[in-house]
Every structure is written in structure tokens, then in C-alpha cells.
């Protein structure tokens, strides 16, 4: 059941992306100053961020989806 959920999400991603290929970025590169600020990163603390996930995993029954990737302006 859970595996079907993942496959479903992947298929939705495919459909969504193929159907939206004509979409143009609605936030222009020159509008991304705020997003480029380091305070807009979803994972600001590197090793320290990994460590606190480890602390929670050892003390809580839940696990996974801690995130960490992404954020920022996508300015590259």
C-alpha cells in the first residue's frame, strides 16, 4: 500500500511536469534577492542539522522525511 503511494506520487510528478512545460517562471531572477538570503535556506546548519535529526531518531518512534534539501533562490 505504501509503495503504491510512492508510485502514485511519482506518476503525479510526471503528469504535472509534462503538462506544465509551457509554464514560465513567475518569480523573475531579479526578484530573488530575499530568497537568496542565507536565512531562507531550509537547512542552514549542515553537520549540526544532521546531528539533531540523529538525536530525535534515537528518542522518538517516528523517522524519515527530515528534509534538508532545497530552499534559497535557485539562483545557482
Amino acid at each position: 500500500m505504501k509503495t503504491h503511494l510512492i508510485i502514485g506520487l511519482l506518476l503525479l510528478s510526471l503528469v504535472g511536469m509534462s503538462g506544465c512545460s509551457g509554464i514560465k517562471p513567475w518569480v523573475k531572477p531579479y526578484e530573488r534577492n530575499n530568497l537568496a538570503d542565507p536565512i531562507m535556506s531550509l537547512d542552514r546548519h549542515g553537520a549540526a542539522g544532521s546531528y539533531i535529526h540523529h538525536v530525535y531518531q534515537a528518542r522518538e518512534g517516528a523517522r524519515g522525511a527530515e528534509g534538508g534539501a532545497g530552499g534559497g533562490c535557485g539562483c545557482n
Partner: protein
Amino acid sequence: MVREVAVVVTNSSTYNMINKMPFFKAFFVLLITVNSMLMSAVAGTLPVDSVDILYHRYDGGGMEIDGPFILLRKSIGTQVSVNGHYYIDSVSAASIDVVANASEYTEERTEISAGVDFLHEKTMISTGYTNSEENDFEAKSAFLSIGQDFFGDLTKLTMGYARGWDEVGQIESDFSEDVDRQIYKLGVSQVLTKNALMGLDVETISDEGYLNNPYRSYRYFDPADENNFLTAREIYPETRTSTAVAVRGLYYLPYRASIKGEYRYFSDSWGIDAHTYEVLYVHPFGRQWTFEGRVRRYSQTSADFYSDIFSHEGANDFLARDKELSTYTGITYGGGVTYELGQGVIPHVNKLKLTLLVDYLKYEYDNFRDVTAGNGELAAGTEPFYEFDAWVTRASITFEY
């Protein structure tokens, strides 16, 4: 793992294959397909070269754990970046589990990892291997993930697969059992407006093997005297599958500060449901100082086979009294400060960052009782519910070069 990918890529009838192949193969078919569809998107960049040195300390609930965590990143050319980390937990344990079941102990866990990020045309492929060892436990894991920015860099999609192999032992005995683990991850981060972005993460983990903690036991009423209890080794199912879904939002406030909100739902095949909420506020002062504060709340329900005390020995097929499988709530209050120095202060270092983060954690259990309370004079099953608090300190220095 890589060979598996090569096999599925050569087959064009992707969708017909999905129902006929094991799930992990289907996962990679879709993963490769998605990335081939996105080849017109804009590339990501390699991680910044850096040295991250962290001292961590956990102090609470009878446990003291500290040590270093060192993370290195170095690019080789414009397409490859390698990384590695070295991590030590020095443990001094006298937690309630230890006091109730065994003697206090000290031990050390050492973890090392090596990884590579490979930027190929417009796709970032990351892979790595981690090995963790302590005197009665060894864990090995390997992962492969693919990430890509697209829609003018407003969207980032990441997919990953990992395998883990644990060897569970017990000191001063020949006891040895295995656990195999598979992990599937899907993550999307999306720029919503010029001041807001969000992230969605889904992760499914399946374990198979010996999932008990060999040192922990369940308790049951002593048939000779119901005021007392006896103990026996826990019996867990040999499989566990869990799914976690998390949504995060990050907003740039009208003044220079950000606020992050996060919610995670977790559910597993053992009957545990958990909810995690977190709010983080980040406030810079000038270019060098950044302050932050956060509140996190966690709650979960018990596993189906958990009980603080069973009616008799062997009352069910599966029996557990592990407090991490009970019903409880945890709250975290955290604060931190970061000081940054820019280019030119230290030769060859583009950025130097000093960070201090301190968190206060408190856990309160709804159906796990403190058997150490009352000097053993309380009737079995009437002891007060257990609770503990802990301080977590993280101090790090990061060089970007």
C-alpha cells in the same frame, strides 16, 4: 545498485513493467524517466568546498553523549565534489532503560562516511556509503539520489534510494542478528513567491530482521504476588514499514527575518502514528550576527504490541515495553547564534562561520511508568509515569574556501 539502473534504463516499455517488477526497480525506472524528461531544465551547482567541525553534547535522562562531527567537502573540477564525515558518540549511560535492566556503561560509537556529488549536464547525482560501529552494533548503508532544478529554478526535485545492513550484537555473548533496510525518498522544494518557498518530503522505510533491542525486556505481573513484576526478553515483529510525509514553509518577513513552519505526519505498520510541529524564527543583525529561536512539538501513539505491564508471561505473540514505542509527547525549545566573517579575514577562506545552538528537550510519557520510583516499594503498575529532560548543545566552526 548502479547495475540495476543500467538494466532498467534500456527497457522502453516503462509503464507496462511497473506491475511486473519489484518495487525498487519500478522506482528507478520512474526516477530515470523523470530525469530524462527534465533534461531541458537548468542545472544545480556543486556544494561549496567547506570544512565543518562540530562539537555536540547531549545531557539528560541519565545519558551523557558527546564528541566531534567533522564534515569535509571538496570539489574536483567543475563536475565532481567529494565529501566525507567522521563522527563520534562517546556515551555514558545510566538511563532508565539501563538502570531497570542492566548496569551503567560507557561506550563509543564511531561513524565514517564517504560520498560523491556528480553534476552531469543538468542533473545532480549523489551517492555515498556510511559505516557505523560500536562494540555491540554495526550499521552499513549506501545511498543513491538524483536531484534537479527546473521551471526556471523555481522547483527542485530530489529522489533517493538507500539500503542499510545492521548487525545487532550483545556484549559478552555470541548473540548476533541482522537487519536489512530499504529507504525511498522523494522531495520537492518550490519557490512560491519572491518571499516564500515550501518543501514537501515523503520517505518510506522498510526493515526486515531482528528489530528488538536485545538489552530491553517487557514486564508482567508476578503470578505469586500481583504487587510485584517479573521480566522477560521482548519479542518484536521481524518487519516494519513506515511512511513519513513532511510539509515545510519558509517566509521572508517584511523586515530582514524569516519564519519557518513545519509539519510531519508519520505512520508505521506497528500502529505508531506521530505528529511533529515546528516553528523557527531567524533574525539577523547586520551581516555578521544571526539569532534564531525554535519550538518543536512531537507526539506519538503506542505500537499495537506495547504495554507497560502485561498480564502474564507470553501474553501476546509480540511483547514490547520499549519507551520509544509508548504513547508520549516531547517538546523542544531551542535558541542559537551564528557569527560570520567574510572574505579577506583569513587567507584562502571565503567565509568563516561560528555557530552555537542550545536546545532543551522534555519528554512526558502517558503509559510508560518509572519502575525506579518509590525505591521499589510501589505496587507493580502503580508507579508514576516517566518523564525526563535533556540539554543538547551544538558548537561548530565552518570554513568555506
